[in-house]
């Protein structure tokens, strides 16, 4: 940790004032010290996770965690499940296939039902922006947003910030390029907000159809040539190109996207020599990123991101349930 980050970390207040929020619905509106606090909390769970003999804590022992995923997910669901279990919580996964959920009162009804089951924390993913906030309004326990529509994916933003901070020692002042489909990406939004809050210089790049002009309201610089964004960057973060965008609506083809916007060795050479390569996964190898780069252990932090994901989610679950667990200074 650099001195500037150490001082930022020491600046957050004691007890619940360090993170005075009931839910984690997004990184928008969070103070830099609140994000720093969550990252610091996550650090110790990284150590617990690496302990071969005992990965488990009993912090959330006896509490019920419900993962309600209204949209398909493999890694985020798994990550939250492992995070809950390592904290000793009873974890229940509720995968609701989209087809079986009728729109309408069902979403609110589901929220009321989960609430009636006395969940102690609920993790929600939903395909509609704002859906998680809608549910959070109806339940008595903390709600964690695991991705809502195009809006936000705050734990992804936090795990990316943690990965960068561990590799680079700090976040402030770093030049971070976020590349690909910005328009339809909740990961991009959470990262633009989170990284800018932590003092990074955020650049976004991609085909003009996928990079809205409004990114400038996040104090991000907008580029339509990926080379301009990568030039001199400390971190190059590639986003997943969703299959439905490849069919000619927003870009002509996956092949053309790869040729113009894919991360290859030549383009990466424009970044700083020690630039970090990141991707939230799952990757389309040969579309947004070349395999050789994704698999280069010196440059790629992609597997580390997955590891940090568990730690960050443990930290969020721990912090958000402290009030109901009666933790000193939080109750």
């Amino acid at each position, binding site marked *: 940790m650099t001195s500037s980050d150490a001082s930022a970390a020491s600046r957050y207040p004691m007890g619940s004032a360090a993170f005075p929020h009931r839910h984690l619905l997004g990184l*928008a509106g969070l103070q830099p010290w609140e994000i720093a606090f969550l990252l610091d909390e996550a650090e110790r769970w990284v150590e617990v996770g690496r302990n071969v003999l005992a990965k488990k804590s009993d912090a959330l022992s006896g509490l019920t965690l419900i993962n309600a995923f209204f949209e398909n997910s493999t890694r985020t669901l798994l990550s939250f499940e492992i995070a809950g279990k390592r904290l000793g919580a009873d974890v229940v996964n509720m995968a609701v296939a989209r087809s079986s959920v009728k*729109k*309408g*009162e069902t*979403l*609110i009804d589901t929220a009321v039902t989960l609430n009636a089951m006395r969940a102690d924390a609920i993790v929600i993913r*939903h395909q*509609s*922006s*704002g*859906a998680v*906030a*809608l549910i959070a309004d109806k339940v008595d326990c903390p709600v964690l947003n695991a991705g*809502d*529509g*195009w*809006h*936000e994916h705050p734990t992804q933003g936090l795990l990316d910030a943690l990965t960068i901070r561990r590799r680079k020692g700090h976040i402030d002042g770093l030049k971070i390029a976020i590349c690909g489909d910005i328009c339809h990406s*909740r990961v991009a*939004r959470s990262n633009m907000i989170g990284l800018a809050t932590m003092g990074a210089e955020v650049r976004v790049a991609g085909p003009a159809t996928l990079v*809205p002009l*409004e*990114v400038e*309201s996040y104090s991000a610089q907008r580029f339509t040539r990926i080379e301009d964004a990568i030039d001199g960057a400390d971190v190059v973060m590639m986003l997943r190109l969703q299959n439905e965008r490849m069919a000619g609506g927003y870009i002509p083809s996956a092949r053309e996207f790869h040729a113009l916007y894919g991360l290859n060795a030549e383009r990466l050479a424009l970044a700083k020599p020690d630039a970090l390569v990141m991707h939230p996964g799952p990757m389309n190898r040969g579309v947004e990123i070349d395999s050789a780069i994704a698999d280069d252990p010196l440059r790629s932090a992609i597997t580390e991101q997955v590891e940090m994901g568990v730690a960050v989610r443990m930290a969020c679950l721990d912090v958000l349930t402290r009030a109901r667990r009666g933790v000193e200074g939080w109750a």
Partner: protein
Amino acid sequence: MTMLAIVNARLVRCNAEPQIGAVLIQDGVITDVGAINPPSECETIDAGAKLLAPGIIDIGVFATDRAAFHFGGITRAALMPDGPPVLDDPGLIERSAKAGKPDLWIHPLAAATQGLAGHELAEIGLMQQAGARAVSTGRAGISDAGVMARLLAYAGGLGLTTIVHSEDEGLTRGAVATDGEMAMRLGLPAAPACAEAMAVARDLALVEITGAPIHFRQITTTAAFNLIRDAKAEGLPVTCGITPAHLLLSDIALGEWRTFARLSPPLRQESDRQAALAALADGTIDVLASGHDPRGPEDKRLPFADAAPGMAGAGTLLTLGLGLVRDGTISMARLFTLLAGNPAKLLGVNAGALNVGREADLILIDPDTPWQIDAQAMSARAGNTPFDGLPVQGRAIGVWKGGTRVA
């Protein structure tokens, strides 16, 4: 013969500040108005110097919501053809027209195309014979310019105005908000505001070649107001309308994904709202309407993009309009030209003004009564108002339809 006089009222009439006077009504028709002495034998109501105005004629409502209309001082409403069922058949027009009588007159708008699908013309002429007084494309526009050209020509030939929704479908498909920082931050699919001006430009070109009258039901953007202003200067038969929501709210109101603020067209950015106020003041806008579309929780207690667009506006149209007068945006006389005079002209009905020979559709207004808009306690079928909690002033305290008191 029944005779009624409403005396000691401040009369809201064209091109003048309200002046104290009286209205004499015989058999449901205004027979004298102004500084008159009513005959001694007739029933007299002392208005206590409150405002007496023509009943509101609300162009483009989606439900026949008697309680809300009467609360809001609305005596006639032009019903959108969206249904269900879609009003594309003379029998349905006839039935809808009877739904409110006698104390509320519904003027059903004929669906422009069969099933409002935008392809084949509906039986506009037969619907006109059944009572339709204008044609409407419904919630959506007609994307095929060829269909639109034939529709305008055909309806115009019958002397009917075509009422259109103006959004270019290619740009707005799937969108639930207007492009801008708000939509970006909320993660909502959005369309550029120019989608409206593009649709207006196309239709104005078609009006130019057909000479057919058109009414743009809701115009909300700077560029579209400029086009309409120019078209009027050229003498084209063009009018346009707006709702209080688009005059008083911007897309900031979408914050926290408030589905009551999900409207079609969507709430715009502040610069467009300012342009709308200017267009209201300079006469570019002809009609102020509620867009009344009561929606229950099953349509609104949803994530923003999944919720249905629309607002319950009938109960708040008058009071929000009075606010525009109080703010100095428009005069009282102009407010009722927007709410009653111009809508009457558009529909060709003998109402909408305090003139001799007009139907006695009247509202008595206390312009000062303070009250608070409350989504939980609306007289409408549903409380989906984007103005929930707003303190307002002024409301209707008496409503007469054809000389008979109905509220």
